[in-house]
């Protein structure tokens, strides 16, 4: 958590944050490739930017992802759900490098070994799922759209960009940024990592929280599971109250794990 706060003291990181945000918005606004749900979301190459920036600029990319998404929303209309979209995108830009710091063990994110690819997929999936959970949960609780509709589309959308686009961009950009000493570890060497045990426990909480949120979010919002301990009058469409009560704590758990990493 301290990295997200400390980066604001470093002018270079503030600039990298603005550049990450502007890049995200600049690719987000004009290039919307294939509509997935018309008017709601589309397959967009821009979703590759936060992942790439995360590996390069760390916490600056996390804030950049949040701000970039906010700018994108400003060009297409904002809603109350976008407040949660801000934090969901913060997590989307924050998780990849935090997870990589733990499971990467000093390996470069552009490594092409099977284990390296698996670790990369885990880092991207962890980021995509929490982003989707938070947006899906918020939209369902505000009765804007059901969790099952938005949550799954966001995971698919983010993963397509992270797996199809990001590796190519990273392979081209990472060596140059590293040579130019612009990686977040070079720009902000003062940030110290927590002990591995705490970070590993945080990672376990993150996975348990976001996995639980995703499973229960889908079951509840589609009406497949009606928990007995929730009053019957709450267990009716649009299932905003069960989703708020049951999925909310899992999301909090995931964020608690993320803060520990």
């Amino acid at each position, binding site marked *: 958590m301290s990295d997200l706060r400390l980066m*604001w003291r470093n*002018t*270079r990181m*503030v*600039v990298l*944050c*603005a*550049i990450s*945000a*502007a*890049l995200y*918005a*600049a*690719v987000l*606004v*004009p*290039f919307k*490739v*294939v509509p997935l*749900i*018309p*008017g*709601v979301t589309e*397959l967009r*190459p821009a979703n*590759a*930017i936060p992942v*790439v920036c995360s590996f390069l600029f760390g916490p600056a990319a996390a*804030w*950049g992802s949040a*701000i*970039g998404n*906010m*700018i994108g*929303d*400003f*060009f*297409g*209309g*904002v*809603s*109350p759900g976008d407040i949660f979209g801000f934090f969901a995108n913060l997590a989307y830009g924050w998780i990849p490098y935090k997870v990589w710091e733990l499971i990467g063990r000093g390996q470069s994110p552009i490594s092409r070994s099977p284990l390296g690819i698996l670790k990369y997929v885990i880092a991207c999936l962890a980021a995509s799922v929490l982003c989707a959970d938070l947006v899906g949960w918020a939209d369902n609780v*505000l*009765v*804007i759209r*059901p969790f*099952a509709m938005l949550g799954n589309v966001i995971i698919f959308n983010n993963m*397509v960009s992270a797996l*199809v*686009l990001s590796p*190519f*961009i990273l392979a*081209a*950009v990472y060596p*140059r940024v590293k040579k*130019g000493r*612009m990686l977040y570890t070079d720009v902000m060497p003062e940030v110290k990592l927590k002990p591995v045990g705490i970070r590993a426990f945080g990672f376990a909480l993150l996975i348990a929280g976001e996995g639980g949120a995703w499973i229960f979010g889908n079951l509840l*919002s589609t009406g497949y599971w009606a928990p007995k301990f929730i009053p019957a009058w709450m267990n009716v*469409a*649009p299932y905003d109250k069960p989703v708020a009560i049951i999925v909310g704590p899992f999301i909090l758990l995931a964020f608690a794990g993320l803060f520990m990493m």
Partner: protein
Amino acid sequence: MPIYLYIDRGTFVHRLHPTVKVFALFVMFWSVYWVDNPIALAPVGLVMLWIAQLTDSWPNFYRLRWLFAILVFTTTIAWMVFYRRGAVLVNVPIFHVSRLSLVFGVGRGIKLAELLAASVLFLSTTKIEEFTYGLQRIRVPYRVGFAISLSFRLVPLFIDSAVTIVDAQRLRGYDFNEGGPIERVRRYVPVVIPVFMGALRKANNMAMALEARGFGFSHEPTTFIDYPVTPADITAFAFLIGLGALYFMLYWTGLGGIGPLK
């Protein structure tokens, strides 16, 4: 390529204090949030139409006309799948077509369209400087506000360079629309890399220029822009409080609900 929605007209809405505009956006969201019934949503919709006429924001609404239509349509359809309540009118696989699901779906669609309309009005009448000033007034730290305003400034530059690269690649015969959805995403690699590298080249110089100008020396830097509070701001504020209160009362009395459920 025009990306900003701001339309410079100098109407009284344009001249309102930035904090009042941010508050107006909040009140519109608040009002729309509390009611479900399409009829109850009509008054706030009429207020927005009146403001659109007053501020001459129609070009932006015209620009986004398809988004409005698609938003209402897809939201109605989506809730007919997930809102499975009320007696079925027509048997359609997957969908639950009942009076209740239709009213609920259309209500949600109109609600989302009104949220979009509120943000279009806000962006049509508010400059970026006013928005960042509003953020500072609500105690967002200066450096965060600065990063947001710098990002807004950089977006058109990066979009221009991205569009130039797309045009250059098209001239060479590169087809961005070739292949399936995944392939079409992958085809943007030759666009994103040059934009990325161009942006990074600017980063170092930008940081040095900022520090040379004393960036970060003070937590509360001085500003040239001053926004005095006028009687129009107070009147608008009172009107917005009334509108927000009225919509909360509609919810509280059950008049904003859909039929016997509320």
